[in-house]
């Protein structure tokens, strides 16, 4: 018989708002129920409004850990990518979202944490400790991350240079990185628009690469 091992929730002891804004947050049965309702409703809504065409799902790994990276032009991007994942992967995928946009107020933080299952990414004060915490969780849990390496939505629709965070996040691990290409989201809901338009979008997952194929943190930082 194995030695008994208790692993209390990482966020035990954190109250309400602290829990939503913590990278230690772990979803329980209640969060899972809310997320199931949210993602099913999102799939339905996206299907009706944007009829997304999904391809390349065969390139996705069978199980975590993994990092999905995608071009970022619209608030629809995370919805399109996560909603297109098979359920077994969707349940373990956490979107890394900007803390100054999605976690700057209690209602937004509650929505991002409970519905989107997002973790806050401190993009303007991302220290080594924060990255270590994210990396430990990625490998230790294990789980999957959805990351937008450009750091913010492109205002022109064209891809911007990558921030160094992605390389630093997976440096020294063998976590596969799966590139995803999203088409049509910029036309459907560009950064300057207040609401989406019903335009068709597409999401394509490519073959995975690993940390050795990414620009080094120094090189990426110089770009």
């Amino acid at each position, binding site marked *: *018989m*194995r030695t*008994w*091992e*208790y*692993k*209390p*929730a990482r966020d*035990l*002891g*954190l*109250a309400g708002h602290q829990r939503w804004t913590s990278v230690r947050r*772990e979803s*329980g*049965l*209640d969060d*899972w129920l809310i997320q199931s309702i949210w993602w099913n409703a999102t799939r339905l809504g996206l299907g009706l409004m944007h009829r997304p065409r999904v391809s390349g799902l065969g390139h996705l790994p069978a199980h975590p850990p993994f990092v999905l990276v995608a071009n970022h032009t619209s608030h629809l991007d995370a919805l399109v990518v996560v909603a297109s994942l098979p359920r077994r992967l969707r349940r373990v995928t956490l979107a890394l979202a900007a803390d100054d946009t999605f976690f700057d107020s209690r209602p937004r933080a509650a929505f991002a944490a409970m519905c989107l299952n997002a973790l806050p990414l401190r993009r303007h004060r991302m220290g080594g400790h924060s990255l270590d915490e994210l990396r430990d969780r990625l490998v230790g849990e294990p789980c999957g991350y959805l990351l937008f390496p450009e750091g913010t939505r492109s205002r022109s629709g064209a891809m911007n240079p990558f921030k160094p965070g992605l390389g630093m996040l997976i440096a020294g691990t063998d976590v596969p990185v799966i590139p995803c290409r999203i088409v049509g989201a910029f036309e459907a809901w560009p950064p300057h628009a207040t609401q989406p338009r019903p335009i068709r979008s597409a999401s394509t997952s490519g073959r995975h690469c690993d940390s050795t194929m990414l620009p080094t943190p120094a090189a990426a930082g110089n770009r």
Partner: protein
Amino acid sequence: MSDIARDRLFGVGNAFDHPVVLWVSIALVALLIAAPLAAVLLRRTGRIDDAHFRELLLRCLSWMVLAPLMIGPVLLGAAWFIGFVFVIMLLCYREFVRATGLFRERTLSGVVLLAITALGFAVLDHWYGFFVAIPALAVSVIAAVAVLADRPAGYIQRVGLAVFAFLFIGVGLGHFAYLGNDTGYRPLIVWLVLCVEMNDVFAYICGKLFGRRRLAPNTSPGKTFAGGVGALVLTTALAALVGRFVFDQTVLAAPAHLIGLGLIISVGGQLGDLMLSSIKRDLGIKDMGTLIPGHGGLLDRFDSLLLVAPAVFHYVRYFIGIGLDQPARTLSGG
């Protein structure tokens, strides 16, 4: 639904008919006003420091929210009370699974949640046969569902934790909720909660005044023999004194029964407290949650009831019955 059942479930007109309910409600309001004033007085006279004062005030504020939440549903009607205890059961279960890590086993957690919901229905329906059948069925389903994952490593721990969570929280608090099916549920519940809460207070005060020898130093270093014995004597006296009015004109009004009930409440309450302390020590955590400022989690507040409620329920049921003059299966109609 019959008029008798409707009156019990939703009737508020006779909420203060029983003297125990009336006097305890008045005393509670007086205490909620007096306690913060006493804290301010103690601070002004320099008897306590700032940190102690803030902690006392935080506890008083928590009680100002908790006390109406606890007494309010009892006064509003049995349906409100049962609904309230059901919500407490769910929140306590949530705290337990997050503290032990059982929440990662979603299927098992879901099965326990369904079993607790079934218990809640059996209680509201006043269907005793179903109420006593659920524990046996739930344990079998938990053990069987855990097999389906085809993951023998850790099977005993997963099933053990799930069964323990269900029996500890679901069945423990389920018996407390079932008291709501008795015609005289208001004085019975008020008496029970009063004795359980005062048992904690008596243990704390006696421990502070006379406590030297520790009761269980490895489990809960703050508890002393003097506190335990003091609580046993004072709670038994309180239970007998107030119980005399609650069980008036029944066989339980005899002194021997009242003392027996008082001993059950005091011993059960203290053991429930120590049981949760053991769980927390084993897990290496201080509190089960953060829901109640100054107290910790809900389980930290309701731990004493978990063992007391089933024991008192079956004692009372054996001698005078629970809800015998109330129509059974009010919702399902059997």
